[in-house]
């Protein structure tokens, strides 16, 4: 059987199937323009488990034809170029941007070890970088693990480094004592691997819950717009000590970042909305799991209150939990944190910082920034404002923020897998910053 033949299935099979379920179809919310992309049947396990390399083109239409994901830079941007980029990032008065570490290949989710080491993962380079700082403040970046497929999930908890590859979560205990000899991946301990081997959206993020010795992890929906199989489109809470997993939230498209609020023990996460439905729809979201097992509505209800053109007929928006904030379409929000430091002015206490890696499925770029969300611990009174902008200058991409983490001095670090840099944003006081 030639695999090529299976890729180009007849168009509209899933729509026909759905029409049978729904009975006579009537017009819903505005449908996208006629399809121009490959006729992939996304509502099948064949697409999910054996996806074509351009699975992201499913749904391509006349209005947005030609948009393609941004290729990842294989090689880090040089330190000299990084320092120029740092001067182009705009931050509020009193703040300053600098290069914390350069040449960190495809830097992704970050985690601090117990002994001052910063660990980060990568995209297809498939490595873990460890960044150590000596007594003089000099930073050294080294590759300490390699051989992963797409290791975007990294967490450190209970003296253990956890790394999530698409279908496995690995663990190394007390890694900082033996950074040069963490060993081969084939010998590594696997604490959880109960994932179906879906292709699209299979990359993972790890969100630690130290109080419960657990990790929240995403299982992405294996398409842009479809009813996910029951073991995808969700957040699980995994207990590495036992391998037990709970279903924390459902009705989710794809999550690549989140944080547990230590004040409440509850999970917050960013969610990425569908492609090919227009430059300005649907919005990406900031979600709050106030009630365990909440269903956030995908694919039936988008933006919290807009029934999807086809799937909205199956369940009303009132069945689902709306977002705390609609962030805007195609921002691609990823890592987030709650600020708990004392370097920033007091009005920043407990604010959320959220990295938006930026758009590919939009005619003019959006996102490519770090935003700040002020919101109460119960989710009330949200307000979103830009915090660090300028990672794109028009169509030119200087960097793509991925994750944010607080540094011991109360500054925040921002990982960037396009320039392969870790940026630092510090508060130095308004008297100390040059006029912008």
């Amino acid at each position, binding site marked *: 059987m*030639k695999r090529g033949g299976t890729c180009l299935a007849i168009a509209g099979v899933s729509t026909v199937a759905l029409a049978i379920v729904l009975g006579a179809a009537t017009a819903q919310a505005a449908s996208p323009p006629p399809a121009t992309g490959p006729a992939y049947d996304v509502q099948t396990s064949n697409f999910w488990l054996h996806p074509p*390399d351009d699975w992201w083109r499913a749904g391509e239409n006349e209005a947005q034809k030609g948009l393609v994901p941004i*290729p990842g830079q294989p*090689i880090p941007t040089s330190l000299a170029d990084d320092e120029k980029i740092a001067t182009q990032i705009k931050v509020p008065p009193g703040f300053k941007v600098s290069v914390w570490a350069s040449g960190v290949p495809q830097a992704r989710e970050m985690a601090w070890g117990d002994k001052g080491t910063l660990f980060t993962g990568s995209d*297809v380079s498939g490595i873990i970088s460890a960044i150590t700082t000596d007594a003089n403040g000099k930073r050294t970046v080294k590759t300490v693990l390699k051989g992963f497929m797409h290791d975007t999930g990294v967490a450190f908890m209970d003296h253990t480094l956890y790394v999530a590859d698409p279908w*496995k979560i690995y663990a190394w205990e007390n890694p900082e004592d033996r950074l040069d000899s963490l060993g081969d991946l084939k010998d590594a301990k696997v604490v959880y691997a109960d994932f179906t*081997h879906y*292709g699209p959206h*299979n990359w993972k993020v790890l969100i630690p819950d130290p109080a419960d010795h657990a990790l929240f992890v995403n299982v992405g929906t294996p398409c842009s717009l479809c009813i996910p199989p029951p073991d995808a489109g969700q957040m699980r809470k995994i207990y590495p000590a036992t391998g037990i997993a709970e279903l924390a939230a459902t009705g989710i498209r794809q999550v690549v970042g989140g944080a547990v609020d230590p004040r409440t023990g509850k999970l917050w996460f960013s969610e990425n909305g569908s492609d090919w439905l227009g430059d300005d729809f649907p919005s990406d979201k900031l979600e709050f799991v106030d009630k365990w097992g909440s269903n956030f509505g995908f694919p039936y209800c988008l933006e919290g209150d807009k029934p999807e053109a086809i799937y909205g007929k199956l369940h009303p928006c009132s069945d689902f939990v709306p977002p705390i904030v609609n962030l805007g379409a195609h921002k691609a929000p990823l890592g987030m944190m709650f600020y708990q430091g004392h370097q920033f002015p007091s009005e920043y206490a407990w604010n959320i910082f959220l990295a938006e890696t930026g758009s590919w499925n939009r005619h003019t770029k959006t996102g490519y920034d770090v935003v700040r969300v002020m919101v109460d611990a119960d989710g009330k009174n949200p307000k979103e404002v830009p915090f660090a902008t300028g990672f794109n200058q028009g169509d030119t991409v200087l960097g793509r923020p991925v994750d944010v983490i607080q540094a011991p001095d109360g500054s925040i670090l921002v990982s960037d897998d396009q320039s392969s840099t870790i940026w630092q944003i510090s508060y130095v006081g308004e008297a100390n910053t040059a006029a912008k």
Partner: protein
Amino acid sequence: MSLAPPRRYARAGPFSIKVFERMKMRGFVAGVAVLVAVATVAPTAANASEDAAAAAFETMSFQDKLTVCAACHGAKGISEMPGTPSLAGQPVNFTEYQLIFFRYDQRRNEAMTPYGRPLTDEDIQKFGAYFAALPPPPAAPDNDPTATKAGKDLENGHCEVCHLRTGKGDTPRLDGQREDYFVKAMQDYKGGVRSGRGLGVMPEIADGMSDAEMRELAHYFAVQTGH
């Protein structure tokens, strides 16, 4: 139904002696120096011979490194060596990613892995730019129009969706590539020797192909001029 994750490749054997012989014929001093270092180490100790080759290569200037590449991949990136690909005209990102995969052991090849290990980011960028700028290989003369037609019917748009004919992107240029290398690459994907990027789509594609189909596609692409 579940799919095995992209397969890991087999461990490489001892460093190949055939490269040494060819370079002696061409009299490339730099290359001979590398391979003398290799030949003096016990050939059964795969890691030791790799270490020696990597150490020697690491100290070379970029121009001398290019000489080592040329010994197998051809003076203008057009390979005359069986089983070794032409690199001329390959997209920048493709060359850079393959070198990164050799560096991080994502891809193992007995001839390439020792050279991949010591590469710096600067080396990789220079190699990417160098090969992308070389004129691509010309179309091979078509001595088998039947195979060309068979290959064209097989291709039927499935390959060019990713293997763009524009010279852009991350996916390798197939037009004008050596037929024997194309078949080797497909066999490597099918046999789990090589996993490729992303979701393991190349092993999936190769898995469903017969030897005859691989040869027909190889011939079809070899006689194309592309962009």
